């Protein structure tokens, strides 16, 4: 027991250290603005987790970050660096929205949501699978291929949107049927009234649990992690490394394909060009800060959720970019202190 505690402690030290370091930097910045750091932090917390509207908004912002972080973490555990979250999420979200829009109105609510989810997962998964396939077959590095694919997918989706799917005079798709809407959390918890937090958050938490089970409780996850740690030992043990790489990238892409769930099924009810603004990339920071563990990812996503909502709150006193800087510093500190990234990049054959 005491050994376990120690292990967990170690996992927490680096992220906590990174956050503390970032806080010190932001103190300095706040002081430069001739404001009191304590006052700003108090304001930030009061506006986010210490009032019910704030909490709802934080949950809303946390939800996509959970999927995004899980996507990156999943690939990481197999020794792969998926930077293609942006492309995968666009494809996934677009397909989710299109399915949602063209389903028959009479379809049962549950089924509609499941179909949208599945569509998003598979579409994102397909985009993730491509660099996985290329890596397995030709050995080309997934970092390059996922980045390149981001551009291709974004352009392709824009083309589809503009040419076939947009509501005239707008840059968004038709609204999804009402049976595909995810219920707002305020329906169950009235205190969260007027926030956008929806059941997508619950789906995100469930997904984190599923990811945990797959990676640590199944034979498949055992093999994936073996490949992640030592592909040669895995191959020697008869594990099909190429298959693991392709599957892992596909699942990672699938998870990224769900990033837009919150937005499409829970908030706007359509897909809109440029809605993401980097959510796919934020997953890298979330995964690293969360030590590539689903629980860590959820906590890290929440932290970034607080910061991103908090930025709006403190905007009245100091520029909200302060929070962006804070986030950036957290990311830098985490990246600098993780060996995983370096290891994978060094493996770039």
């Amino acid at each position: 027991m005491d050994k376990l505690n120690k292990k967990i402690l170690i996992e927490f030290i680096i992220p906590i250290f990174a956050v503390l370091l970032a806080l010190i930097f932001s103190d300095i910045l706040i002081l430069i603005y001739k404001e009191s750091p304590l006052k700003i932090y108090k304001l930030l917390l009061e506006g986010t987790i210490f009032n019910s509207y704030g909490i709802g908004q934080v949950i809303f912002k946390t939800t996509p970050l959970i999927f995004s972080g899980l996507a990156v973490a999943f690939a990481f555990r197999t020794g792969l660096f998926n930077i293609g979250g942006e492309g995968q999420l666009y494809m996934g979200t677009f397909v989710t929205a299109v399915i949602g829009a063209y389903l028959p109105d009479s379809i049962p609510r549950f089924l509609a949501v499941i179909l949208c989810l599945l569509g998003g997962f598979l579409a994102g998964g397909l985009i993730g699978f491509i660099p996985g396939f290329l890596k397995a077959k030709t050995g080309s590095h997934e970092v390059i291929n996922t980045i390149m694919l981001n551009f291709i997918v974004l352009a392709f989706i824009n083309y589809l949107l503009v040419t076939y799917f947009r509501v005239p005079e707008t840059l968004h798709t038709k609204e999804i049927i009402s049976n595909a809407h995810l219920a707002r959390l305020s329906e169950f918890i009235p205190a969260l009234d007027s926030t956008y937090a929806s059941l997508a958050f619950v789906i995100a938490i469930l997904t984190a649990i599923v990811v945990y089970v797959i990676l640590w409780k199944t034979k498949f996850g055992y093999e994936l992690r073996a490949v992640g740690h030592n592909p040669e030992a895995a191959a020697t043990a008869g594990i099909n490394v190429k298959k693991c790489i392709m599957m892992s990238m596909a699942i990672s892409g699938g998870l990224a394909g769900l990033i837009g769930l919150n937005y499409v099924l829970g908030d706007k009810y359509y897909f809109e060009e440029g809605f993401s603004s980097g959510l796919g990339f934020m997953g890298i920071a979330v995964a690293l800060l969360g030590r590539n563990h689903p629980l860590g990812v959820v906590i890290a996503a929440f932290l970034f959720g607080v910061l991103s909502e908090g930025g709006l709150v403190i905007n009245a006193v100091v520029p909200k970019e302060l929070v962006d800087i804070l986030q950036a510093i957290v990311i830098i500190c985490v990246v600098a202190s993780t060996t995983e990234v370096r290891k994978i990049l060094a493996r770039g054959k």
Partner: protein
Amino acid sequence: MAENIIELKNIVKRFGKVLANNNINIAVRKGEVHAIVGENGAGKSTLMKILYGLYHPDEGQIIINGETIIKNSPKNAVKHGIGMVHQHFMLIPPLTVAENVILGMETSKGPFVDINTANQRIKKLSDDFNLHIDPSKKIEDLSVGENQRVEIIKVLYRGANILILDEPTAVLTPKEVEDFFKVIKSLIAQGKTVIIITHKLDEIMEISDRITIIKHGETVDTINTKDTSPKEIARMMVGRDVLLQAEKKVAQTGKVILDVKNLSVTKSKDVLALDNLNFEIKAGEVLGFAGVEGNGQTELIEALMGLNTEKIKSGKILLEGNDLSNSLTKERLEQGFSHIPEDRHKRGLVLEYQNSDNLILGQQHNFTRTGLLDRIGIDEHSERLIKEFDVRPPHKEVLSGGLSGGNQQKIIIAREFFRKFKFLIAAQPTRGVDIGAIEFIHKQIIKARDEGKAILLVSAELNEIISLSDRIAVLYKGKIVKIVDADKTNKNELGMYMTGASNG
């Protein structure tokens, strides 16, 4: 009576609950080769790291040249003329020998590093001590043996009079060991003192003046080499009589299990790593592959296991007549292959996995229920194997990366012998393993042979090859130079074939 240049008195060192050194006493005389022997985990490296100032002892005294060292550190140790060559080399491959040697103590000429003076000094050291090292060569172009000699130069360059060598021969070929011993002799001839850690009894007998035996963190005794025998050392190390030579009955061979035909493997574009190999192994037979490392052994193992198959140019691999040439690794394992990899870190273990997970690696499907890992079954299985194979520390949750080399090897041996196999590849099965465990591993291999398995043994240890094998194939530049009966050959003859001579 020669003076003691180093005295370590009542050294105690704990790592958490592990008592690595428990009241160790050792005295090293000036100008001697002092061997420190003991099983894996006995505390040898810890003791040497204490002497070198890398660890601080919890109790005890370090006395160098009669002076009690209060606060030891590597810097301080170097000042007192102590140098240490670690088992894992600490060199930077793209840099030259000279650049590596002067790293951290560059003398400069104006703003520039004075590499010429360094080159000259290294050249002189190399000549003085028979090291044969060209200071302007890059590390990456040197052999393992040469790398080691660079490490020695590094230490000498810093003015060491006392050299600590931690398992220096573990990574060397027999020829390199021979050269290495010449180096040690010339160090002694010029007044240096050498402390050498090794497992290998014949080496200890050959090179040392005195021997200190350590067991479970305690000194057993210090004895004169000329007054003792390998058998006695082994007994003191392990605490019981150890069979130093594998004992085996005459082989009762059966039908052909493994048949390899015309196997050719490419190394690079038009260089062959294996050139048209043909051999077979019968049930109940050990075929040993002797050869200097890098003559195709690795490629042979990989080809047999279905790894890196894109390099295979031609050939057939048959198991009991079934053609497995195009089968996946997994299928070969299912069909009855088992494999102790030559490099346990690279291919044998996932170091970040705990022991229980490594004990099922490659057999995970046998410990799965509807896709979920059967944790209870895995734990029971692990506990049984850990006990049976005496893995230390005996904990299934410990990460395998934290085990000593010998215990890591036991994990692999336990796992691979648990398979239901017909054909076993045992590659360097006892590399870096202590003698008690070597005896155990050898017995396992002989037992498998006597049960009618076919075994392919690859080893850099000629003693091991000769004592375990029934027939020995000598590999040279990817070809089988000769296949001889093990009981009709000797080290000299094999050594000759290993350099390519095709008839002795």
